[in-house]
């Protein structure tokens, strides 16, 4: 699975299908702080990602 946070590649070893909310926690974020995209489509934290998917997490609070 290819995982990116704000466009930066993150190493994350995942075997099999994973719930997006679990992936968010595994990468050290909380539901409130990111929006997830799977293969370019915005999804909810209740959706799943497959090993062949590209997952993008976009941090909600950046700026200054």
């Amino acid at each position, binding site marked *: 699975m290819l995982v990116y946070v*704000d466009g930066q590649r993150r190493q994350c070893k995942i075997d099999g299908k994973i719930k997006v909310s679990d992936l968010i926690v595994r990468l050290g974020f*909380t*539901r*409130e*702080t990111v*929006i997830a*995209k799977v293969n370019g*489509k*915005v*999804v*909810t*934290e*209740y*959706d799943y990602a497959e090993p062949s998917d590209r997952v993008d997490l*976009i*941090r*909600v*609070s*950046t*700026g*200054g």
Partner: protein
Amino acid sequence: MKCSECNNEAVIYLSYSQKFLCSKHLSRLVEKRVGASIREYGMIEGRKRIGVAVSGGKDSLTMLYLLHKLLGKDRRLKLIAITVDEGIKGYRDVSIRNARRLAKSLGIEHHIYKFTDYAIPMDRLMKHKKTDPCSYCGVFRRWILNKAAGELKLDALAIGHNLDDIIQTFLMNMMRNEPLRIARFTPNGGIIESEAFVSRIRPLFSIPEREVMAYALCNNIDFHNGECPYAAYALRNPVREFLNNMEEKYPGVKFRVLNSYLSVLKNMKVPENLTTRTCITCGGPSSTEQCKRCILLDKLKKQMGH
């Protein structure tokens, strides 16, 4: 997951209302709420020239897009975008491109005001002063926005503060024991009516930050999502983290804090003798003899050997 309103795929789960929403229904909800806020607080009543402060980030560009969508057909109104360039290389120069692109695509006049012309660029300032950059930046930015608003003869200036920004500021002002700042930070206008000070309006004040982001992504708004290199110094960060953790554990807490803030605002007794004076240095509005921008600028110039 399916949308709670239709059969489309959901893009967001709103835990406070236990609803899944697709792109169309999220957009509809956000637009409805922003429209209602504008009407309820009379944000454009009797106003013709509305400035829109755009940094190029998700909040300000979403606000510009929404205001154009909701008000763009009203021929009595003119939207004018304003960007302040604080002089932060690799951050603001990038986001300005996003602001410029959206304003151009919507056919909205866009003006850029620079710290170089009215203050000290943040990169230069940070070489000398390593603490509390947000205070300096905020004072200079507000002063420049007010100057721009005067020059462009604006009746109001729209600021892209979302629900999270509002409640963070509310809590920060309580932590600092600065109740007058709570009174000043309102959805429409402040506590002092003055020609020298252009009213701020906050059309996104009832939209949680996460929904602003989802709206921007669903509507293909091309925003800059970089982080200000100096933001780590801010008190806002731990307050934001606290509120996010609370919302995660107790969904709806952010809306409840917002409602508390609105109740406090309604019931606040503001001293009647508050007036605006004119700064002896720049001639701008000030609560003291010299405005905060000029005080800071004088101090910095001395420290930096100008």
